[in-house]
């Protein structure tokens, strides 16, 4: 009995030593100092610890998001609420054929079929691997790796537009990313409010709908030097009975401030669907499954 306990402790220590000493050493030997390492994202290379206190009113830099590395803690979709739909919302939702149920061949997800922009808020958490935040005099700019897109949150004090969509002469057009304004709530929390998102986009892969009048609030919390946390809530009373959480997502500071390229490529999704996705068929009555791999 005692031997088994000792063995267990030794095994635990071995795991600890492996991940705190040997893995970082191996990475240091393989990547550091090479010119190439400045031009490539290394999913194993992150600063140890929190890096010290968060700088005040500063999000600027390049960050690794959920899914980019096993070393970035996942907040992810697991934090997304299950909202209650209004009757109108249910009607909208009934039009969606999500890929999880209908497969690539049967889905009507415009991103899965055509690589159409997922739009905001989905681009804040779908394929959220890389994010650069830059500060300009009158706005904060979010440069999103997936699909090479950017968003702008104006900080000059302007209010959000009141009329987006419809047929009025002064109405603004809905856009994929909507219209955003931002302000510092305190030294470590930057809050972005957005409305006017194109209602052809889905909130997530299940096909959760929204109107152009949906209001999304993002809260960027600079936890410390190396950690950024983003929480989102959505309010769209025509579609949902109450505001709901779109989840909380964690980001880590990237030491070399470089991220790799990643987009859904329209010509490649056509090839994928022609040669595999469509021939594979659709079985919407199947039980959900996770296959492949171990």
């Amino acid at each position, binding site marked *: 009995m005692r031997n088994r306990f000792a063995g267990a402790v030794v095994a635990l220590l071995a795991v600890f030593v492996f991940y705190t000493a040997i893995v970082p050493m191996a990475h240091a030997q393989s990547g550091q100092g090479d010119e190439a390492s400045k031009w490539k994202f290394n999913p194993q290379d992150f600063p140890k610890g929190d890096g010290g206190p968060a700088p005040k009113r500063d999000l600027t830099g390049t960050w690794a998001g959920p899914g980019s590395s096993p070393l970035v803690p996942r907040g992810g979709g697991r934090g997304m609420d299950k909202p209650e739909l209004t009757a109108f919302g249910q009607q909208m939702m009934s039009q969606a054929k999500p890929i999880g149920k209908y497969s690539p061949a049967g889905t009507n997800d415009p991103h899965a079929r055509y690589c159409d922009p997922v739009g905001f808020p989905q681009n804040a958490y779908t394929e959220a691997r890389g994010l650069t935040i830059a500060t300009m005099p009158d706005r904060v700019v979010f440069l999103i790796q997936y699909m090479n897109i950017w968003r702008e949150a104006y900080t000059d004090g302007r209010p959000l537009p009141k009329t987006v969509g419809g047929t009025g002469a002064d109405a603004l057009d809905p856009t994929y990313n909507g219209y955003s304004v931002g302000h510092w709530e305190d030294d470590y929390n930057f809050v972005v409010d957005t409305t006017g998102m194109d209602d052809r986009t889905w909130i997530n892969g299940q096909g959760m709908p929204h109107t152009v009048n949906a209001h999304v609030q993002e809260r960027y919390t600079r936890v410390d030097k190396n950690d950024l946390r983003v929480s989102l809530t959505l309010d769209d009373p025509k579609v949902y009975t109450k505001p709901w959480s779109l989840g909380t997502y964690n980001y880590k500071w990237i030491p070399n401030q470089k991220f790799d390229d990643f987009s859904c490529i329209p010509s490649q999704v056509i090839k994928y669907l022609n040669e595999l996705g469509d021939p594979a068929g659709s079985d919407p009555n199947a039980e959900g499954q996770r296959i492949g791999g*171990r």
Partner: protein
Amino acid sequence: MMRKVLTFVVALAGILTIGVPVFAHHGDAAYDESKPVVLKPCMVTEYDWMNPHSLIKCDYKDESGKVQHWVTEIGSTPSMTLLGWSRNTMHPGDAITLYVWQSKTGLTVGRLNKLVTADGKELTDRDNKSPSRYGAEEK
């Protein structure tokens, strides 16, 4: 008590070793997950390292000598990179072994279960704990 400690150690090691988060672009309801089809050997004709999903195309000769053309999907390039894949994992002419979840349509298309490369290296396209690109609520 000892068993609990051992279980904890094994679980911790397991999480640290294989709990790699990757995303997957697409649903899998079209595939038959009851038993993978084994294609050994399958001769690579094309390897498309692309997004949203990469494709492996290879020719497999069945018992009667008839050649079957197979198309098998794996994940997106960043997901596969995290699992040890690259654009050079295979090349046309390579003799690989594929374990494939075949489409329920019966056509020779499917999703990868496991690859054994020409030089004997085993690779998968994700682990069962992997969240999809939409997080845990995809299904």
